[in-house]
């Protein structure tokens, strides 16, 4: 066994897939000898050479477009976006070209775009974003966002093996803050589209993903002491997401709270709420509710960031309200 961080799990996943499949190569800014802004790809250029770990110019549209072209020819490129906030620069080619390539004309488009997402690190409005909602609306894309070390590895491997374009959002707050024992070289592949039951419970279902799962679990501990038993679903795949697991849980607990770090309006919780309402209307004993960031660009000051982003205490209070409803 080896105790690895969330970040190392991603790197291990990349390395193992590059070893097993020579069609896999990496592109991104500063990912080569420097190993990336967060050092996720550290050592990989030494190991696989500069042809398979390619430093690019600052041009997200260029390298994501190039990834698509290489994928059409049978490669499986993995692009790193230095901060996921800069994925917006490739929004057009990603949603229009990449996402539709298979549908339009059967082009192979197996590629992964990954990068550090999320806040709680005083990164300010342009180094803290959670962009899932911007892509949720795009038929042809898949989106994953691991919360655990195991899934960090399992989902990067699954994403690389997937025949469709996958966005892989890795929460930078988790990079070095969580560790787990993963046997060296264990071929962990987390199925895309399947949620993880992070905690069993009876009174309330909380649906969440990425770093928020840890705050939800923390809240669940507190609530347990108050006699409130919370079931926690870690969605991990956001597109497609595991409607069945949510439905099963809601039919059991009859109450559901969706918690995400992203802003509320137009955030992913809306879609989840709509699906729950469509599938479990008769089972709901309380409205589906959301705990999310306030609808503002994420500010820099710790006091402001902490206020804007959802905190454990917010989840606890919301959960109490739900079970008392």
């Amino acid at each position, binding site marked *: 066994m080896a105790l690895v961080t969330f970040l190392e799990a991603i790197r291990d996943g990349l390395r193992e897939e590059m070893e097993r499949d020579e069609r896999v190569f990496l592109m991104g800014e500063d990912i080569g000898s420097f190993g990336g802004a967060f050092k996720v790809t550290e050592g990989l250029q030494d190991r696989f050479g500069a042809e398979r770990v390619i430093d690019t110019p600052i041009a997200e549209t260029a390298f994501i477009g190039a990834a698509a072209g290489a994928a059409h020819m049978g490669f499986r490129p993995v692009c790193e976006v230095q901060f996921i906030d800069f994925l917006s620069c490739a929004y057009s080619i990603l949603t229009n070209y990449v996402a539709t390539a*298979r549908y339009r004309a*059967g082009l192979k488009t197996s590629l992964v775009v990954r990068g550090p997402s999320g806040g709680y690190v005083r990164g300010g409005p342009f180094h803290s974003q959670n962009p899932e909602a911007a892509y949720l609306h795009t038929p042809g894309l898949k989106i994953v966002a691991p919360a655990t070390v195991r899934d960090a590895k399992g989902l990067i491997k699954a994403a690389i093996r997937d025949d469709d374009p996958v966005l892989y959002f890795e929460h930078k707050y988790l990079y070095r803050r969580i560790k787990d024992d993963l046997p060296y070289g264990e071929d962990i592949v987390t199925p895309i589209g399947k949620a993880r039951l992070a905690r069993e419970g009876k009174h309330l279902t909380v649906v969440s993903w990425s770093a928020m799962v840890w705050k939800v679990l923390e809240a669940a501990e507190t609530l347990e002491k108050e006699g409130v038993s919370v079931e926690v679903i870690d969605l991990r795949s956001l597109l497609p997401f595991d409607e069945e697991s949510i439905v099963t849980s809601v039919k059991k607990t009859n109450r559901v709270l969706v918690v995400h770090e992203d802003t509320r309006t137009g955030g992913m919780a809306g879609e989840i709420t709509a699906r729950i309402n469509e599938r479990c209307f008769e089972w709901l004993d309380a409205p589906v509710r959301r705990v999310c960031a306030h609808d503002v660009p994420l500010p820099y000051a710790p006091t402001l960031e902490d206020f804007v982003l959802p905190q454990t205490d917010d989840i606890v209070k919301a959960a109490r309200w739900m079970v008392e409803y």
Partner: protein
Amino acid sequence: MADAPVVAGLARGQLHELYYWMRLTRTLEEKLVALYRQTKVVGGLFRSLGQEADAVGSAYALDRTRGDILSPLIRNLGSMLVQGATPIEVLRQYMAKADGPTHGRELNIHFNDLDRGFLGQTSHLGDMVPVMCGVTMSFKLRREPRVGLVYVGDGAMSTGAFHEGINFAAVQRLPLVIIAENNGYAYSTPMAKQTAVRFLADKAAGYGVAAEQADGNDVVAVYETTRRAVERARAGGGVTLVELITFRRKGHAEHDNQSYVTREELDAWEARDPIDRYVRRLTESGWATAAELATIDARVSGEVDQAVAACENEPLPEGASALTGVFADPPAADLEWYRRL
């Protein structure tokens, strides 16, 4: 003897081929106009009148036997034909037929066949430059002596995607030829409102890539110039930006009456019509006889008519066929709740 090079390394038969492809382009487009007027073309119709030499001559410079791949624009029908796209495919696309290459999903010449060597464009201008970077990266990574070619209009060169793509290709020294089509206008916008440079080839200097320029209405010159760029790319010399100077003699699409272009300008360019010029050159130089050309014309007409007849009455796709193929691994059928009632 029949294979001996006559001009620009091209044998007599090849010179005839160039004529064939240009004539096929024009005749096919003219047929499409007729079908458009009969409302059989579903969407818009885009002409390459006067630009046939540009598309055909440049594509002809690729080596199909080696697996070269190009990505055309809307006005490069000729280049797709050279690469092996067939008139019936084009007709089916325009008419949105079920048996068309995209089964009615995409329009006009937006379709692909990487085996034959063409990757259809999408509408967002500039995007194919980055994508063709990836295609040519694959050649480089596999050590294949293949070349890619991508077209970009005077207008499309203003996009960020073009810039990011050509710069990426330059830095990576990819085997990519970029054909900059200077046809005077982007929709109604003259080149002077698109860029402050005199020639599109001037842009090469900003990327550290080779530049070439040719008369886009002279198919042999287009061929020769592009060929030089293709050979440079194949030899590891990286990117060339090839400017072809030509003119868009029709409106942006069939509905546009081109009010913003003067009669004089149109007349001047009509006088330089690439097919007429080539016919004169072929016959005056003794590279082809009038009879030979007439035979080609007849062949083209026959092929186009036959293609139209073969597909004109074909059905459109079934509505529900729209639901498959978004993903490689399709989710269960997605018929909506109220359609399941």
